[in-house]
């Protein structure tokens, strides 16, 4: 029998923005949405990807030597090119790239392997009221593994949070809920067609799942990214506020200003950033959005 594994792309210790206290966050690879502003583009594909950090290259030439597919090519002028279309993600180059200019994003882990890492910071969880957060990507996409991991965390008395887009079948949530202490739930658009346009999928199930989550009694923190001209229209925010006001269990709404910090990751993945012109919202816009939500009795926090 092969052990259950998940494809993750990061384990972040000292995560202090993913639920209460000091936490360790596991980032699952693969997401059902493809938001145009996504700052974790490496999270989207449910498969491994090769990432290039050109500035770290020490020109040792090992990648040219070991690649069985000639995906790494040295040009006449000495510069290098990576043919993503030829690459079969065998990892031979990343294995010998000691300078870490070539990095394989995504690795398979078992629950047992993850737990070794997650247990290390138990003293910090205890002293700060923290725990473990499953994020991504969309952790519920790998729900069998997520369930096993959450069960193991709860069996060991760890506080658990799941950071989700909500785009997942209800039965998946239902199976996970007994092992989740806190849900961090993203709301991007209240309007279905806008949601479709900017994230690539409809929000019907997302809103319905939130309603059901609220009724289940699980504490929920809402996260709302604010992207100027895309989802900052006051009327739409008003609609979101009305909807959220009708949901049980929401302890906090965090409005998060758009930032371009993920933009440079796209080139490393050989992709194009979809919002090159977008700018972060100004603090006044953030405050006015927070005001609209607060008027509906929501506990709003403006993030950074």
């Amino acid at each position, binding site marked *: 029998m092969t052990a259950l594994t998940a494809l993750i792309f990061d384990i*972040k*210790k*000292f*995560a*202090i*923005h*993913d639920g*209460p*206290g*000091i936490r360790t*966050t596991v980032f699952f690879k693969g997401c059902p949405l493809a938001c145009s502003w996504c*700052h974790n583009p490496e999270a989207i594909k449910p498969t491994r990807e090769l990432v290039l*950090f050109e*500035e770290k290259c*020490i020109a*040792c030439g*090992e990648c040219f030597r070991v690649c069985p597919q000639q995906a790494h090519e040295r040009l006449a002028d000495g510069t290098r090119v990576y043919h993503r279309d030829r690459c079969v993600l065998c990892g031979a180059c990343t294995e010998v790239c*000691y*300078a*870490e200019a070539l990095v394989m994003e995504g690795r398979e882990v078992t629950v047992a392997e993850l737990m070794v890492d997650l247990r*290390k*910071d138990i*003293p*910090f969880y205890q*002293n*700060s009221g*923290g725990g473990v957060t499953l994020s991504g990507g969309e952790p519920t996409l790998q729900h069998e593994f997520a369930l096993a991991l959450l069960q193991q965390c709860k069996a060991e008395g760890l506080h658990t949070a799941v950071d989700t887009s909500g785009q997942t079948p209800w039965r998946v949530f239902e199976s996970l809920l007994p092992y989740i202490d806190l849900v961090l739930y993203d709301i991007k658009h209240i309007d279905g067609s806008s949601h479709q346009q900017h994230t690539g999928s409809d929000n019907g199930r997302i809103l319905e799942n939130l309603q059901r989550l609220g009724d289940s009694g699980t504490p929920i923190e809402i996260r709302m990214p604010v992207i100027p001209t895309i989802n900052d229209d006051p009327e739409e925010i008003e609609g979101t506020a009305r909807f959220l006001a009708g949901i049980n269990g929401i302890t906090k709404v965090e409005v*998060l200003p758009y*930032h*371009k*910090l*993920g*933009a*440079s990751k796209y080139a490393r993945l050989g992709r194009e950033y979809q919002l090159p012109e977008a700018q972060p919202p100004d603090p006044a816009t953030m405050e006015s959005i927070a005001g609209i939500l607060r008027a509906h009795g929501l506990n709003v926090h403006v*993030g*950074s």
Partner: protein
Amino acid sequence: MPLDIGPEERIVGRPLLRLPTPSEARQIDAVHDTNESIPPFPGGDAGHFQPDFDKLFELGIGGLRREIESRRQHASAEQETFYQACGIAMAGFSRFVLRVADDCDDIELARACRQVATEPPATFHEGVQLMFLTIVALWFGEDHALTTPGRMDQTLRRLYEQDLVAGRTTPEEALELICCLYIQCNNILGPGSALSVLVGGRDRHGNDATCDLTYLCLAARQATRLVYPTVALAWHEGTPPELTDYACRMLRTGVGDPAFFNDELIVSGLRDHGVSVADSYDYMNSTCVEIKVVGSSHIWVTAPYFNCAQLMLDALDRATDDEVSAPATLEGFEQIVRDQFATAVRDAAQRLDAIWEARAQTGCFPLGSCLIDDCLERGLDFDRGGARYNWVENSFVGLANLVDGMIAIEHLIYDTGELSLGEFRQILQRDFADAEPLRQRILNRLPSYGNGDEGADATAAKWAGALIDITARHTVGPHAYVPGFFCWVMHGHLGADTGATPDGRRAGMALADGAGAAQGRERRGPTASVLSTTRWSHRAALGGLVHNVRFSKALLDNDAGLQAMRGVIETYLRRGGFEIQVNVVGADTLRAAQADPEAYADLLVRVAGYSDYFVHLDANLQAEVIARTEHTAA
């Protein structure tokens, strides 16, 4: 010694440190002439001095003089000379204080100085005034440089509380006077040094000692924001949560203080070294982190600084002198390294004991002896065994370089066998020229200390334990030697003269700057780093050690960040960490980190919804983070 008193000064008595006038120059020349007639000072440590302010404040200068006289009645011939010297020193101290009084234009100040020239201080102001005059007298009168205000929230507490009850002072006025004392500390000490105040902790009965003055001493640091003194907090489980909270909020402002000292650990360590239960609570960081018992110890600190990286290279040289004798096993090489350290420790101890011996033969410190127990009781000078506690604290600089280097040697020479010791030594001698992939592999692929890696941390525990053990076992003379793992600025100085090391550090680069990860080797955040540093016992390391954490301001601008920082600090201390200091940095520092990434490898910043090492971000991201930091600060 000419004095310098400014018109607005409320704590007075600082020596003249500007260019002297002709008549002042004559006074100074006279002092120099006197000094010429004294045999040269053999060296060693007489500074970082912690006088017994409790006794001085209780008896006053006059009371101490009477004690000397009364003891002199029953003295032996040798003691007679000692007491005579002490009497002269205290008379001189009293005359100095009277001279300060004479120089005061302010009537109240002059009255306060006259009072403390003979009598115990009767008010808080008089107490602070006598404290400063004592510091000046010891520092400039008897070469006890870096004499500190020490645990002033305890020594001045009685006077402050009496004043408060009597309506003689207010917290605001006390704060102002403490600020005045701090400012004077800056007036008498040039740049690049250190001076310490330690607050909190416990009293001689083991009860929490937090009082209003604890907060005022911290607040004065915040208000003055000068170089000196650092104000640290002795933290224990009974420290009031609101004091911890106050300290964390202070850190958030970027003032750099307070550092947190582990009171329970240090108290236990002192008792291990024979300090009595009551005395064990009454200790100080003598300037940076080297621990001394207040008012009753003669302890040399950072004597000397050992360069762990160089000693390891020396061992490597010795092991590769003759290829035939190169050790065939890791254990064999480890033994050579241990021998190298043992020799260095023994040689240093021999040298220092000789200096101590020479000092005891040729010199004396009568004023210091009056203010260090039990010199007067024993009738013995400070340098001749008069102090209750006498030992020498050394300091090992670059523990992480040693640990990571041993890991690399284990892997490359004894596990994979891809290199011989001699080949590796040659690569190091060439400073990794033509071996950059190997260097990158050592840096990025081999486990390293500071990341919560069990194997690497076990190696660190083994070597820290070995150095502690070597210090205890390889001393020669009458004095105990106590280990420390602290570097002050020596990691830069020593590193500059040290060739490339097996851990991938290039020649000339600084050594590790604390007891934790080497620069650039910490990759898994502050929690992993704390787990590593606390993997080995710090209890014996009274010579001091530092665990550094760096956060950007923006990371701490919300309650979650503040609480997380507190979580890191408390977890470190509860796991037996000796001392932790948090540096909170702004945009200027971020720019400096861009220019010199290796020096700022552990600088943690908030990126967006997550935190990462600043130097791990690419140029665009760094620019964004700087812009945001400036925005937050505005």
